[in-house]
């Protein structure tokens, strides 16, 4: 079989972007516009290739019908070093996201945070509580009486805020776009008018 280098390259970039989410076989065919047989052969070849090549850090695996890259087991130690270091000194992206949502929307329940992020947030939330950046501020009405979360004074110290009103507004893109469009439309009309008058 002749391996299509460009296809392999495309697959590498797609799988990279998909990250932990992976991509199903049929989607890979669709995105690269490749027939199933060719795809199957190439994916098998790639699985072999990544595994055998000692200079590759990734492996291509199939989990729950999706293809995805995972890091090689042999690097667990190095990766652990990175994660621990980051963990001790910094908040993870997930934690920062959850913190942002809580800061702007407090009081808010975990389920509402999950909805906004589109992924579960429990462990990030736990970290934030453990770090005293977020705390329980009450219970929601209704069934379940879910816990409401809010930010702490510790949060304000860490982020150098005097009070919550100092938070800058979040992007509100749609309304901005509309305004511009409205403006441009009016503008256009005005000029068309002028041109006609002059012409």
């Amino acid at each position, binding site marked *: 079989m002749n391996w299509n280098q460009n296809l392999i390259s495309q697959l590498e970039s797609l799988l990279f*972007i998909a990250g932990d989410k992976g991509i199903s076989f049929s989607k890979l065919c669709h995105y690269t516009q490749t027939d199933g047989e060719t795809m199957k052969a190439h994916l098998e070849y790639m699985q072999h290739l990544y595994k055998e090549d000692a200079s590759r850090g990734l492996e291509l695996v199939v989990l729950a019908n999706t293809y995805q890259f995972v890091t090689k087991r042999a690097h667990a130690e190095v990766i652990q070093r990175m*994660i621990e270091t980051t963990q001790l000194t910094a*908040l993870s992206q*997930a934690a*920062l996201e959850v913190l942002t949502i809580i800061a702007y929307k407090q009081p808010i329940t975990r389920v509402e945070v999950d909805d906004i992020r589109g992924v579960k947030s429990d462990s990030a939330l736990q970290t934030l509580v*453990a770090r005293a950046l977020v705390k329980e501020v009450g219970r929601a009405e209704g069934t379940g009486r879910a816990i409401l979360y809010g930010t702490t004074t510790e949060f304000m110290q*860490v*982020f150098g805020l005097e009070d919550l009103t100092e938070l800058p507004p979040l992007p509100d893109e749609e309304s901005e776009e509309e305004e511009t469009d409205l403006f441009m439309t009016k503008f256009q009309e*005005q000029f068309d008018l002028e041109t006609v008058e002059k012409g």
Partner: protein
Amino acid sequence: MAYEIKVEAFEGPLDLLLHLINRLEIDIYDIKMTEITSQYMEHVRAMQVLELNEASEYLVMAATLLSIKSKMLLPTMPIDLDIDGSYEEEFDPRDELVNRLLEYKRYKEAAAELKTKEHQQSHHFSKLPSLIEIEPADKELVLDQQYEVYDLLGAFQKMLKRKMLQKPLSTRISKAEISIKDQMQQVVTRLKRAKGKLAFETLFDSSEKAVVVATFLSVLELMKRQMIQVTQSQNFTDLEIELTEEVLENELESEFD
């Protein structure tokens, strides 16, 4: 002569002036004040109708133009005050305006270049940092790092990007039929891999509605067939799904029907 006005959005009076200078092919170092002033006024009159936020800035510039124009109408009378007869460098009332225009023009051009860079960069894609679950700290840990509000906004931007990645393509892909049978199979397989027990929610990690629905129906079906049990240890705690021992220990007969 009727000419077509190419409509652009003007970013303020300086931008409008640059546009006029360009269109009228005026030398920026020797601006014809009469011509440009009348053109400028014409545009501003048209724009005033729009009740622009920036109306006052446009008017201030109009006044500046008029003032420059009138200064230039005055005869220049070099007054020789110096004993040695040399003149002070001639003062041109347009100088300050020209300098402002040139400076603004520089940034406007640089902005265009940056936009190109942004465009180029937008053809490269990246992934978000992998989420690696680590045991959350159980005791209070005070952060030793100072953060700024920008970190929150940055995180929010990244989240928006990730949500963009998660958006299922709605129109272009013909909807794949998800069979309950396959889904039942998968639920059992996942439970087996997890030694027979999983939190209810972990089964529903797909962002595709159809998959979630099919998974739910398959769970109901498996319960009906008494292949799994759903338990909850306390009110409001997570539901747990458990394979019955029989299923766990035996090879799955490959088909559901």
